[in-house]
């Protein structure tokens, strides 16, 4: 497991090694960006009119899933998985939509803060249950996905509520150049503001440590239980933001969970995060989300039957994981 110890090694290694190891550890991300460029070129080829409007739509439609993928990535890095992300998004978005309906603009700020706090709380519940009961993450979060979806239905029976105007304006349109969608800026700012400090903190190191080798992390003095709960809390915060971006883009709250749990897992794996934990980052999954979204757009351009698009999603999910596990198998043999 030398690769997973990279954050520590990289600091002490010689410059040449640093460059080499940087390229090696980011090989997946570099490859992904190349693939993304190819896909964009291909999209332009099959749909010459694809341009500013396409990029705008892409950024807005990718935003909720991108935030959900960041949330999932954090938990997966810590060695867990959260199957309740879709339900938590539904719950946070309906709570926000119900609270915002008919309220003045300024009140929306209070709602946004409250919903993010709610997300942190939901995450803390998931994390505490996983740590205290010692039941596998999959079982606890699968069960909690029922609970949160049920709560969402209690809050709002059918799609309704409303989103504050400034929240919608925050992600609609562009900033400066028409090629820079606001949604993308919002995403980058949020992730940079939260993830980079976390990544460089003691907590960030603990996060990778417990995902990589839990007993070793414990013996090195990492408080495993606390770190896991914090990872789930951070996940809850990002999931709440994903829920907020959902009502910002659609304007209403929907109590039925979307396909976000599954897609977030797909994006995380596509983004180079190992499901075994301890390896990867959050920027890879974001690129993964954009790739998944473009593939979907391309299939519409190519007039592919939307049902076959569902098939393609499943095949991509399986294919990506298959390639990922083959790479891992070869690595462990080498």
């Amino acid at each position, binding site marked *: 497991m030398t690769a997973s110890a990279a954050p520590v090694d990289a600091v002490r290694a010689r410059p040449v090694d640093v460059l080499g190891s940087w390229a090696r550890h980011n090989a997946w991300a570099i490859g992904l960006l190349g693939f993304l460029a190819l896909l964009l070129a291909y999209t332009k080829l099959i749909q010459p009119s694809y341009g500013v409007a396409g990029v705008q739509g892409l950024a807005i439609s990718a935003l909720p899933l991108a935030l959900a993928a960041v949330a999932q990535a954090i938990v997966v890095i810590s060695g867990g*998985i959260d199957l309740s992300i879709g339900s938590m998004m539904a719950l946070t978005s309906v709570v926000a939509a119900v609270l915002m309906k008919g309220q003045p603009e300024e009140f929306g700020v209070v709602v946004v803060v409250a919903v993010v706090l709610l997300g942190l709380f939901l995450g803390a519940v998931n994390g505490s*249950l996983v740590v*205290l*009961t*010692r*039941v*596998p993450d*999959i*079982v*606890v979060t*699968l*069960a*909690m*996905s*029922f*609970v949160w*979806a*049920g*709560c*969402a*239905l*209690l809050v709002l029976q059918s799609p309704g509520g409303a989103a504050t105007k400034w929240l919608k304006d925050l992600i609609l349109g562009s900033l400066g150049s028409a090629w820079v969608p606001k949604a993308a800026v919002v995403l980058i700012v949020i992730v940079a503001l939260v993830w980079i400090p976390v990544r460089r903190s003691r907590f960030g190191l603990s996060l990778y440590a417990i995902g990589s080798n839990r007993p070793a992390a414990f013996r090195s003095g990492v408080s495993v239980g606390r770190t896991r709960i914090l990872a789930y809390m951070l996940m809850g915060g990002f999931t709440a933001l994903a829920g907020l971006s959902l009502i910002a883009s659609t304007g209403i709250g929907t109590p039925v969970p979307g396909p976000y749990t*599954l897609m977030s*897992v*797909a994006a995380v*794996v596509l983004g180079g995060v190992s*499901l075994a934990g301890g390896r990867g980052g959050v920027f890879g999954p974001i690129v993964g989300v954009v790739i998944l979204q473009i593939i979907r757009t391309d299939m519409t351009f190519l007039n592919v*039957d939307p*049902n*076959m*698009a*569902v*098939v*393609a*999603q*499943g*095949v991509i*999910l*399986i294919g990506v*994981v*298959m390639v990922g*596990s*083959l790479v891992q*198998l070869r690595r462990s043999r080498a």
Partner: protein
Amino acid sequence: MSETVQPESTRNPWLTLAAWRGIFRDRPMIPLLALLVLLVLASQLVRPGMVSPGWAGVIIRASIPLAILAGCQTLTMLTGGIDLSVGAVASMAGFVTATLVHGPGGVPVAIAVALSASALAGLLNGIGIGVFRVHPLIMTLGMGLVVLGFANVWQLQTVQTGTGVPEGIRWLGSQLFAGVLPFSLLVFVPLAALILVGLWRTGYGRLLYAIGDNPIAARLSGARSWQVIIVLYVVSALLAGIAGLLILGLTNIASVRLADSYVLPSVAAAVIGGTSIMGGRGGYGGTIVGALILTVLTSLISALGFPEAARQILFGAIIVAVAAAYTRVTSES
């Protein structure tokens, strides 16, 4: 643990926590059956006169598809896996059967095609998990999407032909013998016997436990785990297909999302029945009782007039609580 401070012999063994733990750990059927009886009594209290032979028949009829699907989860969970494609596979099997009824060959061909398609999905699951080492959760979730997508395509292809639920399947899925015993027991009892005997008495059943308990040890002992896994997921998909046919008969509706709502309860039934998702521990007997418990609970909740949301919340809470209880009693032995 405070019990260990005092000598065990000075205390009544029936009053120590350790003794209860022992019962819970070694004979999980006893507390499970007690819980089932408790729920039945609660139903009778909530609505006096509710519990009757007819009611029992309806409960058993509703439990059978759930118990079969929970069998898929039990078998796969024994090896440390899970099969989340059962909802899509069961729905697809039911839907394909309903669309092919009026086609050439009639009902037998329709059922054969449906079960072959199920087996194919299971084969792909098994190859992905056994050979390519894809995480079972991901593989089966992805396969669920693939099956759902193809079922939707098939739906568009067959809009003109229409659907029909064969009389025999409707009879098997929904009729009660003498108003008490559901005819679906004719399918379920042999299946359940096969699974129970298969797990207890055959080498294949032992292999499932061995692989789930310690895959490396199983491999070193000569088990070809990839073959075991492929067969396992084919069996699981076939069971799901059969459950889909029964659900088709029970609901009398052909839909590509027919069995979606069964997926999470099927996992819940297996977990409640004492099968560990980490593999190597559990059995089908507990799962059957787990399916009955969930069905009685559902009927109790609707008798109380709670909304669907409350049922979901309660189900989730029960899964966490029961799984936590099992983890506690089995890990501190």
